[in-house]
């Protein structure tokens, strides 16, 4: 039987391409010959979330599965940008304008969320009022002026998305923001022209938020959980029955199936002797992590010693959990971390990079990049390196 494989109908070839779950396998499959290149759709709609890349700069990213740094040319605003999230393959980018841009580095698609001046606590915005562009109501009710750069750096802690913004025209994604500038949580749906606060009350500092099955779950430093239903604009705050003394400095929350994990990142201060700039300064460096899982029966966080087959990716991105066995080059029981918004290192990304692989059971930090020292200096003016799960849709 020698029916040539190039003469099979496209839908038969597609039955195989639909079974490939890694985007790079899919691309290589399409690249076999001209016939397959045209019969296999360019955009695979069936792929599960892909192992993330670490985007360093406008020009390069690191791929864990190939263990290589690749060049990429991202048409991003050239200066003073801050990436305040990375969700479903989209970077969420702030610059010194009110714009909030969603940018997919793979497809180069750009979308805009309602701008910063549409948050309910922003009373007015005026470009001509230089240095005092935004008038913002503080949590205690007072009004204060903020400039473009302050709003870019401090107003929003993180934005996460419920789903891929471009996958399906009919599918409405929700963007959810931790608003540090008002100790509140806000959301907007696709097509909205302004942000809406989850609650009229002011709560407290929320550390991270994750989307899971129709609801957003935010966590505070005390381990408190806010379960947010944007459809009815309702927040249920869950207090822990057995409070845990957390020693972490930055908190992350992530779901692994139905299991909710709280990850705390412990930083230590390190004296740095200048680097590209001559000023001596203190920088923060990751010393370790602790992981807790939520016991819903007793409403308490229980510390766990190992992640088993799982690997977590944390930083400025929507925290992600993968089954390591599904991916080439991904190690089990590891937390892949990169720089995150913290007091010292978010300001112009001036400072040292802080990325690596933390092995939970062994309590060891391995370097992420073979030829790249863990704490080398960042490129002046670039946003911090961030994980992004490549999404071709």
């Amino acid at each position, binding site marked *: *039987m020698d*029916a*040539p*494989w*190039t003469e*099979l109908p496209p839908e*038969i070839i597609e*039955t*195989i*391409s*639909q*079974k*490939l*779950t*890694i*985007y*790079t*396998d899919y*691309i*290589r*499959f399409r*690249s*076999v*010959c*001209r*016939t*397959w*290149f045209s019969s296999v759709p360019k955009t695979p709609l069936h792929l599960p979330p892909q192992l993330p890349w670490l985007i360093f700069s406008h020009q390069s*990213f690191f*791929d864990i*599965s*190939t*263990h*290589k740094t*690749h*060049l990429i040319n991202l048409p991003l605003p050239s200066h003073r940008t801050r990436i305040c999230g990375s969700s479903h393959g989209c970077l969420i980018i702030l610059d010194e304008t009110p714009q909030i841009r969603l940018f997919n580095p793979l497809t180069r698609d750009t979308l805009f969320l309602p701008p910063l001046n549409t948050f309910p606590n922003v009373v007015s915005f005026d470009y001509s009022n230089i240095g005092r562009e935004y008038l913002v109501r503080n949590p205690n009710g007072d009004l204060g002026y903020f400039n473009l750069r302050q709003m870019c750096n401090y107003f929003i802690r993180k934005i996460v998305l419920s789903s891929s913004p471009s996958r399906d025209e009919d599918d409405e994604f929700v963007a959810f923001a931790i608003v540090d500038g008002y100790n509140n949580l806000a959301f907007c749906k696709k097509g909205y022209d302004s942000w809406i606060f989850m609650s009229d009350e002011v709560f407290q500092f929320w550390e991270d938020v994750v989307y899971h099955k129709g609801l957003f779950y935010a966590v505070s430093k005390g381990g408190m959980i806010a379960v947010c239903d944007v459809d009815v604009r309702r927040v249920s705050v869950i207090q822990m029955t057995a409070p845990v003394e957390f020693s972490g400095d930055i908190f992350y929350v992530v779901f692994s199936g139905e299991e909710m994990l709280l990850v705390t990142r412990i930083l230590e201060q390190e004296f740095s002797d200048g680097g590209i700039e001559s000023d001596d300064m203190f920088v923060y460096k990751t010393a370790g992590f602790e992981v807790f899982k939520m016991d819903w029966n007793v409403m308490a966080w229980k510390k766990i010693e190992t992640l088993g087959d799982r690997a977590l990716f944390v930083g400025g991105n929507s925290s992600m959990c993968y089954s390591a066995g599904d991916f*080439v*080059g991904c190690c089990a029981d590891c937390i892949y971390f990169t720089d995150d918004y913290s007091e010292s290192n978010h300001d112009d990304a001036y400072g040292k990079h802080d990325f690596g692989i933390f092995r939970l059971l062994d309590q060891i930090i391995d370097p992420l990049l073979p030829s790249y020292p863990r704490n080398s200096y960042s490129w002046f003016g670039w946003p911090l390196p961030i994980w992004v799960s490549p999404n071709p849709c």
Partner: protein
Amino acid sequence: MAEEVSSQMNSLSISETNPSSSATISLVSGDDIVFKVEPTIAKEMETVQSFIDETDGKITTIPLPNISSHDLPYVIEYCEKSIAGKITKEFEAEFVKKLNNEEVKELFLAANYLNIKKLLDFLSQVIADRIANKSVEYVRRYFGIENDFTPEEEAKLREELAWTFTGVDPDDEDEN
């Protein structure tokens, strides 16, 4: 040669276990070996069933020139399990263990020709697993496909999608 003998024995044993030959369907492989199967099994094969339906069941001997007597027993085995509702992960794992790359491809084409959706779907997964994290050159050899891109087109593809072409498994000896 040995293969042919074993296939004939296989066909004999099938006809022996189905003494009521009037009710059975005869599938004739490309190399003229007759396999007698229950009509219910033919139902799993849409191509065969539509042939039977078109002739109002008068013709029960169906030539399958595209399928060899080596591959047909595998197809029949899978369909029998399917009818019995006994397609389990364990069965599929055992089933695929017996097959080399060439046999997987031939069975895929047979499943396509006979229009057996479940088998086609299962073999798609098997093929996808076998070409995962392999180079484009490996995948071309796997399917016996010539590279028909011009060197310029190929270079452009590789440049634009550089990350997809590196870090693959070493191309081990093809087993077929």
